[in-house]
């Protein structure tokens, strides 16, 4: 659309940016890594990998395959649990289910042999014997979905509000800035925890909402500043002259010209929200009990470290560190590519 304003033949903003990005080796490696993670997430989402992460594949705290099986023992379970002493019934007491249960017991065929649990797993097992590698993959899915969707939500809120505040100014700007001040007056983590405590409902969607609804403030200021800068530019005045409505000028004419700011903020916030999800889950406000995320894995590994079981901590930390670093480097490269004046 805005390409119409450019002379034909000269490469577009995006093509130029892509060219600059390709020259950045670090940026391209990071992009490949992030792309790899995205593929894993898609595969996990489609159920191609790690669909059975909740299965108790190994023994409890199965060590990683490369460390070898060393049964450290640990405190003994009371032998009392295994004994099958007979239950003495009291004659005066009637169990309404007794006859049904007896009948069912007789009809139940002999128990099929349980599949033996593996002594070791590729990256070890957690306390229930679940495969840590699969958990890490599944955790990547949760964490990345949360990070991406929450960042999209925050950016959408911030862009719309920033556009209105910056474009219209005046009373509209005052109201939106007042809202901004209220949100930023509260320390961020406290605000997040307060909202988490109020919602008091666990789940991926809750986490996304919490992060999205609290994380828009910084982006809002940037977008607003851009709009203030652009609203008096000649191309906007020209659009006004040809009869474009306010909404058209805001979102059709100005937005593409400030989108590089938005894009960089988006990727910055993906990283931020991945980390926030980890913090929320670590503090027990995060995803529900049937979901695994890096945060919940780290939370579990607190107790495990005491027992000397380090593998879950290592897996979650490594997966997270690689993605966060790659994404941050990629964001840097993207900013350089999109806004060469900053370089």
């Amino acid at each position, binding site marked *: 659309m805005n390409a119409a304003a450019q002379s034909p033949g000269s490469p577009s903003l995006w093509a130029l940016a892509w060219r600059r990005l390709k020259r950045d080796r670090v940026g391209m490696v990071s992009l490949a890594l992030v792309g790899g993670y995205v593929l894993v997430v898609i595969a996990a989402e489609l159920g191609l990998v790690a669909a059975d992460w909740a299965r108790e594949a190994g023994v409890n705290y199965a060590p990683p395959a490369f460390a070898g099986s060393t049964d450290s023992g640990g405190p003994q379970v009371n032998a009392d649990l295994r004994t099958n002493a007979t*239950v003495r019934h009291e004659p005066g*007491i009637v169990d309404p*289910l007794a006859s049904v249960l007896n009948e069912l017991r007789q009809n139940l065929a002999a128990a099929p042999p349980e599949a033996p649990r593996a002594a070791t797993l590729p990256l070890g097992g957690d306390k229930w014997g679940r495969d840590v590698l699969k958990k890490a993959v599944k955790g990547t899915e949760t964490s990345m979905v949360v990070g991406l969707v929450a960042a999209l939500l925050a950016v959408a809120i911030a862009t719309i509000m920033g556009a209105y505040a910056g474009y219209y100014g005046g009373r509209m700007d005052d109201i939106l800035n007042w809202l901004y001040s209220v949100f930023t007056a509260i320390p961020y983590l406290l605000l997040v925890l307060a909202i988490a405590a109020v919602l008091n409902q666990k789940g991926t969607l809750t986490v996304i909402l919490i992060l999205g609804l609290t994380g828009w403030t910084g982006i809002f200021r940037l977008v607003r500043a851009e709009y203030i800068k652009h609203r008096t530019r000649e191309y906007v005045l020209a659009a006004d002259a040809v009869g474009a409505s306010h909404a058209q000028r805001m979102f059709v004419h100005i937005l593409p010209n400030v989108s590089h700011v938005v894009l960089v903020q988006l990727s910055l916030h993906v990283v931020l929200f991945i980390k926030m999800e980890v913090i929320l889950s670590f503090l027990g406000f995060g995803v529900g009990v049937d979901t695994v995320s890096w945060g919940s894995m780290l939370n579990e590994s607190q107790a495990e470290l005491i027992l000397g079981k380090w593998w879950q901590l290592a897996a979650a930390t490594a997966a997270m560190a690689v993605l966060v670093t790659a994404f941050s480097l990629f964001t840097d490269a993207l900013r350089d590519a999109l806004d060469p004046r900053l370089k």
Partner: protein
Amino acid sequence: MTLSRFLLAVLIALLLPGCDERAASPSAQAGAVQQKVLRFTFQAAETGFDPVRVSDYYSGVVIAAIFDPLLTYDYLARPAKIVPNTAVALPEISDGGKTYTLRIKPGIRFSDDAAFKGKPRELTAADYAYAIKRFLDPKNRAQYAFLFEGKIVGLDKLAADAKKSGRFDYDAPVVGLETPDRYTLRIRLNETDFNFSHVLAFPMVSAVAREAVEAYANDTNAHPVGTGPYVLKQYVRSSKMVLEKNPHFREMLWNAEVGDNPENHQIAARMKGKRLPLIERVEISVMDEAQSRWLAFQRRETDIEYQLEELAPKFMNADNTLKPEFTSQGIRMERSVDPEIIYLFFNTQEKIGDAPNPFGGFAPEKIALRRAIAMAYNVEDQIRVIRKGQSVRAHYPIPPGVAGHEPDYRIGIPHDVRLANALLDKFGYQRGADGYRLQPDGKYLILRYFSQPTERDRQFDELMKRSLDKIGLRVQIQKERFAELNKLADQCRLTLRHAAWIADYPDGDNFMQLLYGPNSGQTNSACYRSPEFDKRYEQSRRLPHGVERNQLYREMARQMEADTAWLLTDSRYRNVLVQPYVVGFKKHPVYAHEFLYMDIDRSDARALKDGRP
């Protein structure tokens, strides 16, 4: 100063989990040499020190040090044995177990307090009568009102009047609570009860001075005035409590029943005949994090530590003995099973509020549903994985060490997932399209399990979810804070929850009352009402501890299993770590204020450091 020390400990705990923690803090040791100070921690905050207004364990420890009940338990006798405390002798029980007469030792003084206007105040029988009346004053909302409700002649009428008028008349005569003279208390019960002495030995049933209660009416929780061995010297809410020896404490000599236990003889050799209390100052700080408490103990900033469940592998070998690096320092470990039960309870009411409860009621298909859940829940994993082996399976509602416990009783609800599935199929709980079961009439079925938003509870959530997935039951985890959960329990609104009950007094009645119908909404959180159970419970209350009562208790336990109101899970081990210079500690099965009977001897600690055993 105290706050900064605490913050420092937290900081160290956060930053340096692996550093050398053995260097003793010099200031802490220097302060302790002149005065015998005992320092320990609470893992949760206290609520206050008004005996009728609190019900938590931590407040109870402090209350027991400040106040005096009529009777108490011998320090060393096992099973716990009742002995006189402020009473001259054990109660005279007459009228077929309906009248208890006690004489109080003359000359016992309350600790000095502004409320007494500078005059010494002697303890009288009327102080105990007043204390008991306070439990039924609606204004106090006493959690332990059940100890007296319906029991004492004439007292319930007074409580009913108070509910109407809004004022409890403490001066009105009560037939069941008479003081014929200054030092005599006569309690008349509505029904025969041979176990009432346990109630009189419960630290919350201690003498309070009416002047003091009325003087501090707004904040009795912060101004405890009692006759006990200690007084509250310093109190920072939810952070620090300092107790000091009560200078007017009556003469009380260490005179525990030694029996033929060699360990008891060792303790007695050092303690016998000494005037109590020997420890002059007790400092209690609140530290929520196990890691901080563990570091503080290692740095010898605390002298006794008993709340390190989740850290057990750090100081214990696989065979549950103390690791050599600690025994070589002279640290001792006392290991015992707490007189407690942990259980999973179902709401057995047919309706919760106005909504129907698909898990409640006593129709066979409802019992089958509860039974299937109880059979599917993996108690072994709870003990092995969550407790790390630091608990034993509970089979019977009365735990070991409590009168009425049956060591040979086996729980009648086995862990059997296949049978649970077959049972649900039989009663028509068909699986829907998503693999989860529906109600027999095809309606949606979801079970709400209540727990707290902590890491520990998350492990229980996971276990619950994993267990119920195996029988195809949909579960929703509902997170509430502890206080909120208790409020919901009082309204009978919890559908499924783990609960724990630790003995207030070592008698089976204290546990069986948890299932008594009329206690619904107080201690009976399952709101279980079974005529068969209640009939036997009422009978059992009139019997002394013995074969006859045990038979009733066994029948009651089987009745509860048949109705599946609870699934008993476990009782936890308590591993108490004690510094070498602490003398005379032995875990009491009921009381947690053992420090009254202990001493501190630092010369001994030095000998141990030199390598002598």
